[in-house]
């Protein structure tokens, strides 16, 4: 129904206008968040090797596909269905549009608008993991994991935070999903990459990490630009309403990302002697992830500080997981999404403006509980998959490339690869 229709059906002008403006803005947010899939796909493809490019593209496509279907059938009900004890949603399975009220609304929006918006967020969490498990995971196993995160992992913690569960009652503030989306993805990435083990050749006989450079920086950079672009939809869209604060949210988002990029570049310049391209672009994402929880409640200057912290942190975190923990994370997803997601959520407790009532303690409880839940669930899921389907491809497949063995194709049929 358009504005005239709504008014005819009995709404007053203000109400009807408000509704439709909120619909438009939420749709714009949803559409932009969808496009993050392209950003992740390009980023992950660009930062890994050419012989596995077709495979990583397929994984990125398929986790959106499975996420869309399964979140519709099961996930939405678990996340937004009628709350049971603050833990889980229980209604709306198989057709969540039934959750709409008599006017077709759910949480103040037409139910379809609300579902599509949450579908694309769910798929974002799922897609984070493919990067850290790249270049060695069996395709079928990846599909199984992807189904699991969309059904049993993301919607549950999502219910706690955004679906009327116990964390939302507590006053935990995660505006657009530093924790709900990014940290959830990042923790799954950590568990997955750990169980999987490092790529062949990643660690020398002396245990030192070796560099395995990404094969296509322009598309990786494009991926980051796309993600930054879409993040305006992610953060500003999370108002799910046309409001006067959209510009403020865009400002904090943008300043944090800029500060983080600058910080990451500076740190690499100092530590490695040269400004590192791939790490600098990771820095942008680190800043975006970190500001996501508090983009609506911190000042511009606080956003800059949050960005600087994230940009510095991400470099050290990547090195830490690479050199100390020795978890092989080809694209840095654990540090970018997991670590910066958690830290950004906590910093929201530090920098939230007066009057918001956000406290560090509540933020800490939220981060810790979600972290624990997701870690345990991911451990269970990946272990089951490993024991049944098997997580990892054979050594020969890994050496010769997943494209040839898993898909019978090459991503660059007209070019020779080096080495």
């Amino acid at each position, binding site marked *: 129904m358009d504005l005239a229709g709504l008014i005819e059906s009995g709404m007053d002008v203000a109400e009807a206008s408000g509704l439709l403006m909120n619909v438009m803005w939420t749709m714009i947010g949803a559409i932009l968040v969808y496009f993050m899939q392209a950003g992740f796909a390009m980023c992950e493809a660009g930062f890994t090797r050419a012989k596995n490019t077709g495979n990583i593209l397929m994984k990125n496509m398929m986790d959106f596909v499975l996420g869309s279907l399964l979140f519709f059938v099961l996930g939405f009900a678990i996340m937004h269905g009628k709350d049971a004890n603050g833990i889980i949603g229980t209604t709306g399975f198989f057709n969540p549009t039934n959750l709409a009220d008599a006017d077709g609304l759910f949480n103040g929006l037409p139910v379809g608008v609300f579902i599509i918006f949450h579908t694309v967020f769910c798929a974002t969490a799922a897609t984070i993991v493919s990067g850290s498990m790249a270049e060695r995971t069996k395709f079928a196993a990846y599909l199984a994991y992807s189904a699991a995160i969309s059904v049993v992992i993301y919607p549950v913690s999502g219910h706690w935070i955004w679906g009327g569960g116990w964390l939302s009652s507590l006053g935990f503030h995660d505006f657009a999903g530093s924790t709900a989306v990014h940290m959830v993805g990042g923790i799954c990435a950590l568990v997955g990459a750990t169980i999987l083990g490092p790529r062949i050749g990643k660690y020398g006989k002396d245990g030192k990490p070796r560099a395995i450079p990404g094969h296509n920086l322009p598309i990786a950079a494009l991926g980051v630009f796309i993600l930054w672009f879409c993040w305006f939809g992610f953060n500003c869209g999370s108002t799910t309403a046309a409001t006067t604060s959209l510009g403020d949210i865009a400002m904090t988002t943008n300043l944090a990302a800029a500060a983080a990029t600058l910080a990451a570049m500076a740190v690499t310049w100092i530590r490695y002697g040269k400004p590192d391209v791939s790490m600098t672009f990771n820095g942008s994402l680190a800043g975006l992830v970190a500001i996501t929880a508090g983009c609506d409640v911190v000042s511009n200057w606080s956003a800059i500080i949050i960005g600087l912290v994230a940009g510095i942190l991400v470099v050290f975190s990547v090195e830490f997981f690479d050199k100390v923990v020795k978890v092989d994370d080809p694209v840095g997803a654990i540090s970018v999404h997991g670590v910066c997601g958690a830290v950004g959520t906590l910093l929201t407790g530090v920098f939230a403006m007066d009057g918001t009532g956000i406290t560090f303690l509540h933020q800490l409880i939220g981060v810790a509980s979600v972290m624990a839940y997701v870690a345990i669930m991911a451990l269970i899921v990946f272990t089951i998959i490993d024991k049944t389907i098997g997580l990892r491809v054979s050594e020969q497949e890994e050496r010769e490339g997943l494209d*040839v063995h898993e898909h*019978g194709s090459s991503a660059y049929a007209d070019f*020779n690869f080096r080495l």
Partner: protein
Amino acid sequence: MKKLEIVIQPEKLEDLKAILDDNEVNGLMISNIMGYGNQKGHKKVYRGAEYNVNLLPKVKVETVVEESIAETLITKIVAEIQTGTYGDGKIFVHEVEDAVRIRTGERGSDAL
């Protein structure tokens, strides 16, 4: 002087370099080639159409060495690069008449 022309699986390059380094081989020319030999390729399907990929990516390493060490190198390479499966590769031995170092103009063995 002899030239060894060594065709191997790409992933064996590091091992081969290690062998040559240990024997003080001073220079290499490395090329990416497509090889065709006893090793069978893959059957691929692209959009429903099957095709054989019987050309496989290989690495060719050429090194010009003193006659005296050629045989030692061959023995070591066979010993250490061998996996016993098709596609392990080959070594071809050629006579080289002369070598010139452009930087200095040196000739013959001095140029290696």
